[in-house]
């Protein structure tokens, strides 16, 4: 794997390799010294053209846990503000010879595009409404830990599918891991032709009970002004996931940040079947695994000896 640009480009085996690697980093995370020297002396750039809390912070912490040098660039306050093109910004940052560039951009294909302009491995941390592969990987990781396997599991993705890169990446990733996916929401927020990606489409929560996993999407305020839904009240009345609609054996997920009382009721968020906090925790180890696979996976031995038991050597201990 040279870059991580889209889940669409990953095979099931490649997804599993990243998840297995993430398991090994989870073990490192339980130690007192959580840092490993794998990427010592190498540079990771995070380049965020959109606001982000959990994705940017977890990629940055992941790079630090792997001992990489980190450059964080936000479009606000950088030369991007002065009108520098994406191509020139990438050329500038590439002059530091980074091992990886993690990019979030408001437009589809940005990560793929910069991969042509830099020698660094490129990680797509969200490109427009296209893909968000690291989110999909952490969601699959979270589910695999809970369910063992996604094979044959039924997963409902509920909400604003039209504007969601998470929905697209997860739809592909869940299916690739063997799950059956239904997307559900008002017809105005389900993209025309989405069923050709192999999912079912529903405009009602009536059959929600058949799902083992319910994945709710963020409903953005501005969709109201564009007549996608008449009001948040009506949306919530029709599509909000609450504890009455959920049954106790169903798992609930959400990519965050949640609009409490809109797509999810407060009770549902705080219920024991909610995996939202686990998703955030998974974000760190999965992003460590992504950087490791791209930067060290090919040429170095795995941090674990094949089989279980030995974890990567923490810094300060003899290797």
């Amino acid at each position, binding site marked *: 794997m040279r870059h991580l640009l889209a889940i669409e480009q990953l095979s099931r085996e490649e997804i599993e390799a990243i998840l297995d690697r993430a398991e090994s980093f989870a073990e490192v995370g339980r130690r007192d010294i959580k840092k490993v020297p794998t990427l010592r002396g190498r540079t990771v750039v995070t380049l965020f053209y959109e606001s982000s809390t959990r994705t940017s912070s977890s990629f940055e912490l992941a790079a630090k846990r792997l001992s990489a040098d980190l450059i964080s660039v936000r479009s606000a306050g950088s030369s991007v503000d002065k009108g520098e093109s994406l191509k020139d910004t990438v050329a500038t940052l590439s002059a530091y010879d980074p091992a990886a560039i993690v990019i979030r951009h408001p*437009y589809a294909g*940005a990560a793929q595009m910069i991969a042509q302009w830099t020698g660094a491995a490129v990680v797509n941390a969200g490109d427009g409404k296209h893909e968000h592969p690291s989110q999909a990987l952490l969601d699959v990781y979270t589910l695999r830990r809970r369910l063992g396997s996604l094979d044959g599991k039924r997963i409902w993705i509920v909400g604003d599918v039209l504007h969601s890169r998470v929905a697209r990446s997860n739809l592909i990733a869940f299916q690739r891991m063997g799950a059956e996916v239904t997307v559900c929401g008002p017809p105005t927020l389900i993209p025309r*032709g989405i069923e050709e990606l192999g999912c079912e489409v529903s405009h009602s929560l009536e059959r929600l009970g058949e799902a083992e996993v319910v994945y709710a999407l963020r409903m953005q305020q501005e969709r109201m002004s564009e007549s996608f839904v008449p009001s948040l009240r009506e949306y919530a009345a029709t599509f909000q996931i609450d504890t009455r609609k959920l049954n106790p054996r169903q798992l609930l997920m959400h990519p965050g940040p949640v609009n409490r009382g809109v797509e999810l009721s407060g009770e549902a968020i705080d219920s024991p079947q909610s995996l939202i906090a686990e998703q955030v925790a998974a974000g760190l180890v999965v992003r460590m695994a992504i950087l490791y696979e791209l930067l060290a996976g090919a040429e170095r031995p795995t941090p674990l000896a094949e089989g279980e038991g030995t974890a990567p050597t923490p810094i300060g201990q003899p290797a």
Partner: protein
Amino acid sequence: MSLADSLDVRAGDPADLILRRATVLDPVAGIDGVHDVVVRGGEIAELAAPGEGAADGAEVVEAEGMHAFPAFFDPHVHLRTPGHEHKEDVETGTRSAAAGGYCGILAMANTDPPVSTAADIAALREQARAGASVPVGFMATVTKDMKGEDLTEMVELREAGAVGFTDDGLPIVSARVMLRALQYQRLCGGTIALHEEDPELSADGVMHEGPVSAALGLAGVPSVSESTMIARDAALAAYEDARIHVQHLSAAESVAVVRAAKAAEVKISAEASPHHLCLTDEEVRSLDPRRFKMNPPLRRESDRQALIEALRDGTIECVATDHAPHQDEEKDVPFEQAAMGVTGLETAFAALHTELVLPGTIGLELLVERMAGGAAPFGIERPTLAPGSEANVALCDLGAEWTVGDDGYESRSQNSWCAGRTLTGRVMVTLAAGQVAFRLRSFSLGVAS
């Protein structure tokens, strides 16, 4: 009236040459056979028996195995001048046309500022007489500065030489303004060419709305954003008995509307671009805006098939490139941010020959006929190879394979939708308005002894 009389071109020496043993095909004139095409003083003097044409010291082009067609006419070209000469101008755009086998083009008016006054037309015509390799006609905008509000001084524009009117690049949103323009056409003449799109429906769309846009997370342009506007304007044209030309048809629904309007004897003509006839929205999966972002967008295979069928049955009477040059910095950005449009003059014939004629989808005669079909809708006489007419000839080697971009482009811009494709069929020589407008560099002309 010859192209040289009705349009503007740089004055030059009239051609004297012989295309020896060329396979001459002009389906409209009923010419199909091997001849020596004798060109004297810029006119087709005779179609002599092969090997029999008298050279009289003129250049002789050994054209055995090559095809001589009436040169092509493109009613939809963006020359980008005034205002965007970094993308194209009269000189580079007409060189590009000549290299594609064209003997005439119509330049769109969505320049900066738009072509809205008689003085604008006069200045452009002067430029064409100074530097155009092939005859150019200039369109003027329908509304002042393309704002869609007030009509331009259409009578004065016509008197200054505007071939017709178009706000191409933008639709005329107001039905009232559209109706007024059609009424006023009775006074000034000139076909009104229409970019049909309902901006309420296309909104911020960047590609066809369908499974591919769903997969890519790109905002879609529904096919009905085009067809509903065509339906409106066909109804208005029928009401006013006015003459309209629908530009760059892209969707099956649009074809159905035009076909029905023609059946109802509305004065409507239509064009389709080579890229819409050859490609589908599947190409957009590459997220490459340089080759695959344009307006209207590439649509589904069923739409492409509907366009081909319409080309066959005459619902679409002509191929038009919508040649839309852009510089690299406007295309080296993510898909949604990139400028719309691709170049097409240099590849139109070769691409359609490769993609539609060679597989047997359409016949060579039909392609040759439709490549020059864009003249008549604008009241311009179509090029012909009949003896006695002005020499407008595209000499093509239908067996020549070439990779687009390998030899660069005559256009100032490089956003060809064919970039990197290997095409079969190449224009070797173009005669336009009686002059040699183009000869392929590697194809040397022998001189008779």
